[in-house]
């Protein structure tokens, strides 16, 4: 769009005159006009006018005349004058301090200088004392940074009050005593939610479900517990007594969660079953070395029987059995071996 500050007018256009004359058919056309082809000289030759400059005022000439005041300057308004008049003052200038800010800025959006009534500045200056940081209007730095103008404390409180009716309070008993959590809430389900952006906001990692179950709360019998341990393999952690089921084979989180519950159900019922061949279990098949059926115990019992005046009592054997069980069923260390030696010496009455 060019500005209409300089006006070029075709004045004294011979062609226009000629056209007008041709249309109106006036007598002037027959009259000999200077510069026209009808003018002939004495010899009957066409008079060819010398061309020095066009027969209209050029732009420079007009501008000179306008500047010196010899020609009338035509003032024309801009094409978009109505739109320019309609531009109003920034909204921030006519804001009421008592207004509800969350109605002005309800959701996350880029900084808008005309809306935010704060006298903020942003950006560095080499010398701030000399020259203040960059102003609010037209400041790209303020637009770039993520702002939290929609997350004012008042807005958050409003939001919380709105969703409060969908919430239930956390059990106060569990808050008071966290040890109840294990028995009251034996199943823990963990999953990750990924917040990111793109054309597709799904994340394939969010489908994985990790379910942790406290096995003690299943109240299994000895044999079904052993069976569950065998079936669960390394998913069962004996130290903490927790069974961990990780499911990721289905496409969605819900499917995986349902599959995890299905696995737990199947595992529970399968361990409670007693097949006929399970009665054939021998000592060597046990998960843990057993003291009650061990040769050591048998030998100690025989010792009591053969020497009735010995100091060995049933309590002492039981105490030794406890130690023996942990010694046999855990990794052998120097300390456990020393403990074994100490106990067997005290049991047999041998002085160290």
């Amino acid at each position, binding site marked *: *769009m060019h500005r209409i500050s300089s006006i070029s007018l075709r004045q004294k256009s011979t062609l226009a005159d000629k056209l007008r004359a041709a249309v109106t058919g006036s007598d002037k056309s027959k009259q000999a006009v200077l510069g026209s082809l009808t003018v002939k000289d004495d010899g009957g030759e066409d008079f060819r006018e010398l061309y020095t400059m066009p027969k209209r005022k050029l732009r420079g000439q007009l501008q000179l005349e306008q500047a010196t005041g010899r020609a009338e300057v035509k003032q024309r308004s801009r094409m978009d004058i109505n739109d320019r008049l309609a531009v109003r003052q920034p909204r921030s200038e006519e804001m009421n301090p008592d207004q509800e800010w969350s109605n002005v800025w309800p959701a996350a959006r880029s900084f808008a200088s005309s809306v935010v009534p704060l006298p903020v500045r942003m950006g560095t200056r080499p010398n701030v004392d000399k020259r203040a940081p960059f102003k609010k209007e037209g400041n*790209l*730095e303020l*637009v*770039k940074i993520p702002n939290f103008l929609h997350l004012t404390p008042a807005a958050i409180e409003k939001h919380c009050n709105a969703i409060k009716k969908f919430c239930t309070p956390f059990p106060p008993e569990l808050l008071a005593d966290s040890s109840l959590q294990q028995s009251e809430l034996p199943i823990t389900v963990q999953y990750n939610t990924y917040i990111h*952006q*793109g054309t*597709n906001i799904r994340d394939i990692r969010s489908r994985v479900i990790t379910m942790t179950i406290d096995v003690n709360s299943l109240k299994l019998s000895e044999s079904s517990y052993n069976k569950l341990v065998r079936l669960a393999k390394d998913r069962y952690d004996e130290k903490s007594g927790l069974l961990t089921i990780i499911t990721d084979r289905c496409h969605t989180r819900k499917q995986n969660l349902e599959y995890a519950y299905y696995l737990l159900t199947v595992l529970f019922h399968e361990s409670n079953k007693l097949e006929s061949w399970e009665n054939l279990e021998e000592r060597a098949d046990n998960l843990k070395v057993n003291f009650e059926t061990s040769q050591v115990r048998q030998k100690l019992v025989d010792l009591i029987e053969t020497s009735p005046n010995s100091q060995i009592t049933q309590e002492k054997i039981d105490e030794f059995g406890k130690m023996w069980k942990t010694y046999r069923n855990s990794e052998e260390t120097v300390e456990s071996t020393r403990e074994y030696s100490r106990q067997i010496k005290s049991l047999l009455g041998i002085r160290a």
Partner: protein
Amino acid sequence: MLRTPGISACRQISTTSCAMKNKAGKHKSTVNRTQLLTYEMAQKPHHIGVRKSWLTWHSQNLEEFRQSQPVVVAQDEIIRRFIRGFFPQNVVISGNELVIKRRGNVCIVAGFLQYSRRLDIRRIYWMFGFAEEFLSILLKQPVKLELAFVETEDDVAYNYI
């Protein structure tokens, strides 16, 4: 064309001392200090990534989230070129400084436009709607324009040199 191997071999050797000065980030000022600099332009090369060049915000450049980084780069370029070409009368600094933010699956284009040449409010509203709709369909995700208007390019000037 015949070329003597001896001459070309000689020409490759230059024994004059190298007079290249390290000139990065140094500008030559104009006589009247009329050259406009925005904040981005005024920053030095060692500020890149610190004060400068945060013109696109997305999570695909984070560790473990690099699933479609090239797609994002291509989308950025498409958006920038479209805005530059669709608002040729209105862009400031030839449309080089547009901020593209992504939130969820929404793509937000922020920055500044000017109306010094012609202000046609109805046309601007229509163009905003068209650009949003067109880019949304093209990129298969909602695109929002949060472009703010300044009167002239001078409003975004950080400094004049």
